[in-house]
């Protein structure tokens, strides 16, 4: 049996542990016995994108060691998947250590969650139930660096009870960009506010994306604006299931809006 390692990402580990737990729930339901290699930390993207490529070297080494025994790596982040796939080689090259370059080239393949579900497991209907109006933001690194295409929306469309609403200007960057959000804070916020405006215009209850970093930025703006909107990682939506304790009649009533009944439904679905 192949060993599948969950790369939970440092941001999820500290700020969004529910996302990692959702991935575990989801993959187990689909028959994958996912492991969490405890030696993992951070892929090094914050250093690389700030220009500290040398300081990323120990993190790349640590990543290689942590996942050495795995046959595949699954990560609920387009940004971190992109970093491992496209930046580790760059870091290795700059380090001048040919051994590191060979190790990077021989590392297990890394899959962003939706790539793993659709391409490796061959599923688009993961049996999820999420009776809410949802809009989806295709994060830049998922969209362009990885090219995940319509995999996330195919997965979302197969979720029972879910209404997927088009997001205007979906392909435009939300303005997070890692340290960009700090170094060019005002531009970042201008971009984020435009994204938040588009999100609110959809009338959705929940903004979903495959990267908690972008959701943290847009969600932070939506929250400050007291918009009443929630942000959720795609994995958490896909891990939601139909509760067995409630009758069909109650569920269809819940499907109409985010009332307290829905809250119970979701709570039970965890």
């Amino acid at each position, binding site marked *: 049996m192949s060993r599948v390692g969950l790369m*939970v990402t*440092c941001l*999820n*580990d*500290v*700020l969004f*542990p*529910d*996302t*990692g*737990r959702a991935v575990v*729930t989801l993959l187990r339901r689909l028959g994958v016995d996912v492991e*969490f290699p*405890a*030696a993992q*930390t*951070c892929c090094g993207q*914050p250093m*690389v*994108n*700030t*220009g*500290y*490529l040398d*300081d990323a070297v*120990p*993190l790349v080494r*640590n990543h290689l060691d942590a996942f050495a025994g795995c046959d595949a790596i699954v990560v609920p982040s387009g940004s971190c998947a992109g970093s491992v796939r496209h930046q580790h080689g760059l870091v290795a090259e700059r380090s001048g250590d040919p051994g590191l370059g060979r190790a990077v080239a021989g590392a297990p393949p890394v899959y962003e969650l939706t790539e793993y579900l659709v391409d490796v497991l061959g599923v688009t209907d993961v049996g999820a139930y999420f009776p809410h109006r949802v809009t989806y933001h295709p994060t*830049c*690194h998922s969209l*362009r*660096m990885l090219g995940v295409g319509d995999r996330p929306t195919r997965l979302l469309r197969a979720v029972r009870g879910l209404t997927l609403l088009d997001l205007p200007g979906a392909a*435009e*960057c939300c*303005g997070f*960009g*890692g*340290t*960009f*959000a*700090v170094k*060019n*804070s*005002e*531009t970042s*916020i*201008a*971009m*984020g506010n435009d994204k938040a405006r588009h999100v609110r215009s959809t009338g959705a209850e929940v903004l979903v994306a495959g990267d908690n970093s972008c959701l943290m930025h847009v*969600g*932070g703006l939506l*929250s*400050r604006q007291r918009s009443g909107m*929630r942000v959720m990682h795609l994995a958490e939506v896909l891990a*939601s299931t139909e509760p067995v304790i409630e009758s069909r009649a109650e569920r269809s009533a819940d499907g109409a809006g985010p009332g307290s009944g829905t*809250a*119970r439904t*979701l*709570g039970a679905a*965890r």
Partner: protein
Amino acid sequence: MSGTFLGTPAFPTAARTALEDSQLRRNLAHATGTIRAKRAGVVSEVDDWEQLRLAGEAIKDRVLRHLPDYLEQLERSLVAAGATVHWARDAAEANRIVVDVAQRHGTDEVVKVKSMATQEIELNEALAAAGIHAWETDLAELIVQLGDDLPSHILVPAIHRNRAEIREIFLREMGRAGRAAPDDLTDEPARLAAAARTHLREKFLRAKVAVSGANFAVAETGTLTVVESEGNGRMCLTLPEVLVSVVGIEKVLPTFQDLDVMLQLLPRSSTGERMNPYTSTWTGVTPGDGPQEVHVVLLDNGRTDVLADPTGRQALRCIRCSACLNVCPVYERTGGHAYGSVYPGPIGAILTPQLRGVGTDAQTDSLPYASSLCGACFEVCPVRIDIPEVLVHLRGEVVRAHQRASRVPSVQDMAMKAASWTLSSAARTGAAEKVAGLGGRLAGRLGRTAPGGRAVLGALPGPASPWADSRDVPVPAAESFRSWWERTDGGRSRSDNTDGGRSDGPADPAPGAEGGR
């Protein structure tokens, strides 16, 4: 034009001006949005667009690999066709050559075809210093010049101006530079264009010397090419007796056939047109037809330094289409002036630091960071310049240059070192997370609850304030994923009933209860 980018503050500060100007933001969003949509439309008509991009990339890469050979071939072809070839290492040399030609013909004015290379070397200022007026004849450049302004876009230099402003500039300034605008000028586009036409015609017919750049220079034939929309360039290329073209050395193409690829890529990428209205080509001197004295100044001005960088040299593939500006979310909100260079936007953010060199001034060093690395620029680039890759590479060069220059590590240096040390070991990371979790528990009591039950913090003092000025800050989870996994054997142990790590539950029965866990 007396305006200059000298003294432009670093990007984050310069950007503030545009961000605070809501009219400017609307102008920019409208203009870039319109061009972006036009481009997307005409690009989608071409079935083999990706093949064309690959061909464009391959042609330019071949040029860069064999640049000296192609340049020498270009020189031979030009000389054989009756042109005079000059080599200019830098802006000062190039400017001196153009000034000399103008002075030899005893003229105190030249007409100019829109050209990025001559803006880069600030030729107009050099000519003015020698008592020679340089008249821009491209409509948008004319607006910028008359308004004593700076260009803010490669293709649409006056993108930041609206019609009412243009009318005002024409009424106020045209008379001082030549034929005045009619007193009853309105801000209708046709009336504005008519005023410009009358004003410029006088200059075309009078000027003895014209100055141009070139979009492409074909080595095998010595043919220079200018593509444009208005035909004003062609007037300059054909009416005066003398033509001087300042051409960046990266503009060379091996064969005439290579124009086939480039003339498909360029107009669709830049103006969103299937073909630009005017494409002029000229090969040296044609007796009795057009300028009888033709000079070509081959300009280096930092380009060989760019060529020496294996990662950065792809910036020299640039054909100045400006597609990357029009899709860039940063450019859309800040405009071009914030980049402090004639090359704004994503391409400016990689080209300018390379031409100037990093590590010498804060403004230049801020440019590689003026991007969220969203990758939209690479997606539209007709010659596949991986701008995000070069941005990251240049950030590395900026950091290295600073570390070489200073023995004392910066705050950022130390923060990155500390983060690298902590995050290269799971044990150290886990320990740090426990502290964050504790902080989260405490902070959770201070914050409020966002929809979904998540505890967030509002405005914060100190180093976190740039983030928290407009965004709520998520409080670290009370329990990290790592420690949840350890405690519950990855959720397999039945002890997983306290829900300790749950901070983001979509709908807790009692929202905000995390703080007490």
